[in-house]
């Protein structure tokens, strides 16, 4: 068996892995895992990733979890263009820095924005208090500003003149609040111009394809009660 990728494009790190593999013409079998149906909790999937999260990779007998690890594995195994993860020690360190930062910063804010604004009220049928929503959106606003001021600055891409893994991980993250109806690029011309550059570098069609699911998240049908009961504790743990 060749390379298999276990993904749900509703998930932001899955979108980054998907775009990266497609863009670099890495041959893989897509193994869809439907999070909203709780498919990541199955015993079969636990064989691939005992942490029960997507994305996950299987390459022959080798299994790997964690999006950053998967992206770097693909980068090294398939000898993709250098700009994604430069050989130059300092350029590479800046990509690593961003990839380390985003886990607790942009990831957290974007995930909470989507769940508090859309998934709780619509999918789970649990309204979120206005104060909570306001705090979530305020946090998002500050984190996005931080992305612009601290990482993008006046550069073409987040870590330098060319697109890297950092840009891919960041844009797929930001499309979460966009899917929730947040105007994250409004009033931020620099960030908006960056988004255009990233989309152009990735290719409009691939970008659109990867984001179809999230941009329709608002139309999710309500979860049935068993699924809701199954997912609720995990959701709460996830957005803590």
């Amino acid at each position, binding site marked *: 068996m060749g390379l298999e990728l276990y993904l749900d494009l509703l998930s932001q790190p899955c979108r980054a892995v998907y775009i990266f593999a497609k863009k670099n013409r890495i041959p893989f079998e897509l193994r869809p895992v439907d999070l909203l149906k709780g498919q990541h909790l199955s015993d079969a999937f636990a064989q691939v990733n*005992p*942490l029960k999260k997507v994305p996950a990779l299987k390459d022959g007998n*080798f299994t*790997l*979890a*964690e*999006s*950053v*690890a998967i992206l*770097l*594995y693909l980068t*090294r*195994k398939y000898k993709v263009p250098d700009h994604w993860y430069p050989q130059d*020690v*300092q350029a*590479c*360190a*800046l990509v*690593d*820095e961003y*990839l*380390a*930062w985003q*886990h*607790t910063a942009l990831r957290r804010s974007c995930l909470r924005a989507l769940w508090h604004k859309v998934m*709780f009220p619509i999918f789970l049928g*649990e*309204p*979120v*208090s206005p*104060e*909570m929503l*306001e*705090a979530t959106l*305020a*946090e998002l*606003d*500050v*984190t996005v500003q*931080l992305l612009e*001021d*601290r990482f993008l600055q006046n550069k073409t891409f987040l870590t330098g003149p060319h697109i890297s893994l950092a840009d891919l991980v960041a844009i797929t993250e930001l499309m979460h609040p966009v899917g929730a109806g947040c105007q994250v690029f409004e009033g931020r011309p620099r960030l908006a111009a960056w988004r255009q550059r990233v989309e152009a570098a990735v290719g409009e069609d691939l970008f659109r394809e990867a984001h179809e699911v999230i941009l329709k998240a608002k139309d999710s049908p309500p979860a049935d009660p068993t699924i809701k009961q199954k997912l609720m504790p995990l959701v*709460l*743990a996830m*957005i*803590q």
Partner: protein
Amino acid sequence: MYFGIGGGKTSCSTGQLPSKELFQSNKLWQVPALKDGDFILTESSAILIYLSSKYQTADHWYPSDLWARARVHEYLGWHADSIRGVFGVPLWTKVLAPLIGVHVPEEKVERNRTTMARMLQQLEDKFLEDRAFLTGQQVSLADLMALEELLQPVAVGYDLFEGRPRLAAWRERVEAFLGSDLFQETHGPILNILEQMVNKQIPKPPPEVHLFMLLRISNIP
């Protein structure tokens, strides 16, 4: 029904949600961690990788083998979500919050304790398994990152290793590898922190840092 973080309130003991002002204060808290000429780098994992590559340290720290390196990155990714943050909390509840007169509700302390136990179990089952070190038979950056975090609660009196012989043996292997002198030098200050607090040796944080501290405290789930 309203849902907050962990089904409760986000508030710290003041009962208020963190304000935008609080979030902004967070920005001031970005300290550069490594400076090499003009080059500035933050984030401990990025710094460790940079040092490994630049100074060509022994291969086991950051293995060049495709699969072995992937294991290190897998750990670092999981660590960022599950270890960092979680194991830093006891230092906040026991030392730093009291320092500025904030009491963290028992409910949160308990929740943190439960989360730590769950993460230690995952650490043992998914990463350590029956290996000598977290990502293989040799010590790597993953072990350093993990031990650093795990020692924080230990420093304030949580015995995380009790009843976990596999994890305790791993800790001993890592410490033995580092050598006790280096270990004491780097961990002396943190391991003494309770004593320092009892003796009121920790300086009171200046007011401009309070906002940041409140934010961190209010983010405790």
